């Protein structure tokens, strides 16, 4: 398979896309646009035939592992099956081709759908007020932190701190900093859970928000979450639930019920967005009623007029403002809607139950070679440690990860969270069979018996092997033109 760079396939004079002849009377371009704004020549894009483009990117595509072809237990990423029906449905005439500035009377179907999605997400969260606008989970966090700030300001309070556990996703502190807050990180605890006593020492009247992922990044449910929430509420702060791990608790427990005041969803994870080689996501947020007026907008509201339901775009009265242009990542929200309408309440609870079952099964079967330091059981994922293997045989988590590729499995997330040595964060999701999990266990059992030096050289069968990341960081080559110059 050819992997020649796209630009090297270029040949002067080749063409793929052609445009129709101009059917209106043509004028000199220089009479229409200011001379100084006109380019002397067009940008030096590559010149390719249509067949070039197709063959090149078809071949490149085959150099990927993906959920459609491989088990992909990448922890924290919920790599579940992406229903194919979502693709056809989202292209439906009237949805996929609707302009964002279509007038409300011309988009009642879309608004109806988005309104229903708001309602469903509010119910699943136990937090009734929803804005679908944030483009991704991290933007949902940012929006919620701005919202918290606006809320406190409206009460005349000036709170400057955001607190989070050490196992938090990197987006939590990054979003807090971007929203202008000071970050306070808790120390890791013995059992991997937030220690309410320790938390008590770090919150005060300056604390705006405590951000927590639940189940947390170790795959453990924060059993003291009610107490934790009380601690925050007692000092007047708000609790933010990072919804990255919602796949564990759908219909089982709700952020609003265990004390959360705000949360975001990761629609491309929990609700099969899809992952798209890195995105796009969609990060709707759900908040308590008393925070609703501050939501970013517009949101969809419903009213009855002459017996008919009318849907409108509305900006909440004390909105923090827009987080992005247009309504939101509607294409991804649609997929979330399709998913929720396909599953219903029982189906959604089944998702989490099977996700938890699959994770615990894998955890149990792997426990002798890859023990999990914290937690008797896990929720939808677990963080195993290769520390014993490293100490005894020199086999690292990275070795196992790389070697798994040879066996036709994508690697788990490794070296995160940092609180576990030689961490391997494994999330099988509910859309894998026992047979697949068994095959994965067998592969790991085989691998850990292999020679460490052989494993250091892994992967052995992939198209490339262990790229030099150090030189890429020192001397990044970020475009083809630069590489040619070199």
């Amino acid at each position, binding site marked *: 398979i050819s992997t020649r760079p796209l630009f090297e396939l270029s040949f002067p004079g080749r063409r793929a896309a052609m445009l129709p002849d101009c059917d209106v009377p043509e004028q000199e371009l220089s009479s229409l646009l200011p001379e100084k704004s006109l380019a002397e020549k067009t940008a030096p894009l590559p010149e390719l035939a249509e067949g070039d483009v197709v063959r090149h990117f078809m071949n490149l595509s085959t150099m990927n592992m*993906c959920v459609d072809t491989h088990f992909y237990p990448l922890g924290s990423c919920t790599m579940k099956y992406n229903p194919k029906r979502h693709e056809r449905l989202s292209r439906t005439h009237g949805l996929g081709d609707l302009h964002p500035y279509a007038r409300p009377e011309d988009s009642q179907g879309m608004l109806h759908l988005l309104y229903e999605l708001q309602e469903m997400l509010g119910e699943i969260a136990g937090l009734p007020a929803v804005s679908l606008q944030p483009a991704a989970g991290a933007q949902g966090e940012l929006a919620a932190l701005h919202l918290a700030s*606006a809320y406190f300001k409206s009460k005349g309070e000036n709170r400057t701190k955001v607190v989070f556990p050490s196992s938090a996703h990197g987006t939590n502190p990054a979003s807090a900093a971007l929203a202008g807050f000071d970050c306070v990180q808790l120390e890791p605890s013995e059992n991997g859970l937030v220690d309410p006593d320790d938390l008590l020492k770090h919150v005060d009247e300056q604390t705006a928000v405590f951000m927590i992922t639940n189940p947390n990044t170790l795959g453990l449910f924060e059993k003291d979450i009610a107490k934790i929430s009380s601690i925050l509420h007692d000092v007047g702060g708000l609790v933010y639930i990072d919804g990255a791990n919602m796949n564990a608790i759908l219909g089982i427990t709700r952020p609003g019920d265990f004390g959360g005041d705000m949360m975001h969803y990761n629609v491309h994870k929990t609700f099969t967005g899809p992952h798209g080689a890195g995105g796009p996501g969609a990060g709707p947020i759900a908040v308590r009623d008393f925070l609703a007026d501050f939501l970013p907008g517009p949101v969809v509201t419903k009213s009855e007029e002459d017996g008919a339901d009318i849907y409108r775009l509305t900006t909440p009265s004390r909105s923090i403002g827009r987080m992005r242009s247009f309504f939101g990542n509607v294409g991804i929200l649609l997929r979330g809607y399709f998913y929720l309408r396909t599953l219903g309440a029982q189906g959604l609870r089944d998702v989490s139950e099977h996700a938890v079952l699959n994770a615990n099964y894998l955890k149990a079967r792997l426990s002798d070679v890859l023990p999990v330091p914290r937690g008797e059981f896990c929720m939808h994922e677990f963080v195993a440690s290769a520390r014993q293997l490293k100490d005894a045989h020199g086999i690292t988590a990275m070795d196992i990860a790389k070697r798994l590729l040879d066996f036709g499995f994508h690697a788990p997330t490794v070296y995160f969270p940092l609180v576990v040595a030689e961490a391997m964060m494994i999330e099988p999701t509910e859309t894998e069979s026992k047979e697949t999990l068994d095959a994965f266990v067998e592969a790991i059992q085989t691998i850990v018996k292999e020679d460490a030096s052989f494993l250091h050289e892994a992967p052995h069968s992939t198209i490339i092997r262990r790229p030099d990341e150090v030189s890429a960081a020192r001397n990044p080559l970020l475009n083809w033109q630069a590489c040619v110059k070199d």
Partner: protein
Amino acid sequence: MAYLYNTPEQQQQMLDVIGVESIDQLLTQVPKELQLDRPLDLPAPMTELALEQHVGKLAAKNNVDRVCFLGGGAYDHYIPSVIDELASRGEYYTAYTPYQAEASQGTLQAFFEYQSLICALTGFDVSNASLYEGGTAVSEAAFMAMRVTRRHGKVLISEGVHPEYRHVLETYVRNLETEVVTIPTVNGTTDLAKAKELIDDQTACLIFQQPNFFGCVEDGEELCKIAKEHGALSVVSFDPISLGVMKRPADYGADVAVAEGQSLGVPLQYGGPYLGILACRNDYVRKMPGRLISMTTDRNGKQCYVLGLQTREQHIRRDKATSNICTNQGLLALRATFYLSLMGPEGMREAAELCCQKAHYAADQLTKIDGVDLMFETPFFKEFTLRVEGGAEKFLKRAAAAGFDLGPELSQFPQAPTSVQDGVLVAVTESRTKEEIDALVAALA
């Protein structure tokens, strides 16, 4: 049990291995009192067939059968069919962030090629691998400029920038010290004198849009010069299609270029997901937000691609990261990659020329109608602002009744200047035909 595999029999086998009696026992991790004691209140499940019927009915309540002259930052440009075919490949579609380079060379090389194409398009040395969309790209560029200039006090932005982009910027800085100062427009373009007045040595950047929200062509060179003279970065939000005929940002002196990339093969889908583009001079690479792909070699010396400069990113740097972004717009960046590969220089030039010619023809014809005028006497590219005597509402209704959508009206943007609130945008892409334009004019005349 849609999408599930394990049958009751298998579940039992798995529970036996785990050593528990039931899934409920596993769920005791969640304190009993926190467990939901009722089913979620959600609509009943639907099969694929039922869902398709349901969605079909909803979609039919949206009117998309009119000829589209809508603009304002999202456009009905033609999308070659190759793009759908390639982007829907499961290997792109259902893969994730390429953390394991060995299992993701396809994605990595494609994103590297995206970066290279955006560099070729804009004239810059560096492009990241995408941002959320055009509006947040402006904000990210402003933050980047603050990091580069170490000036956090003030950001200048032209009134000609999309009002929603300006709104987003206001939201992003609302808890910070940063002041966002708007440069007014005059006759549709940024008031250069005012710009000179408002800029100072505390200004991190001067942001403008080319062509701007009203469709008008700005004096990019001059605006960049004003920024440079005060040590501020010039940030331009450009229309990718316009670069088929217009100067590239780097070529007229911009320091940072951002864009809404929807024009590059992304369907309208009611506003998103779209594609945020960000490119800049090489000097700023380590201050850049978003993912970057770097070429390197593997242990056998084979050329390959890998996530680069991750130490700027939130998963490593946490609160010191250059941004909080985690997902990018991978699938949309792929679409833009395919689009630019298919179009090539000639395709981009032809598309830009067609837009420009047809927009001018439409403007010429529409302004022949009594009471319909161009709001600004300023050169425009593919979009222009009409002023309609007696207000736009009836005018737009007549157009709609005849099967044409124009807009948006400027009055729907609280951030738009009051002097132009009665304006209506009209966008004309290469997809529009003379026949359609003539029919529109006939319906309104």
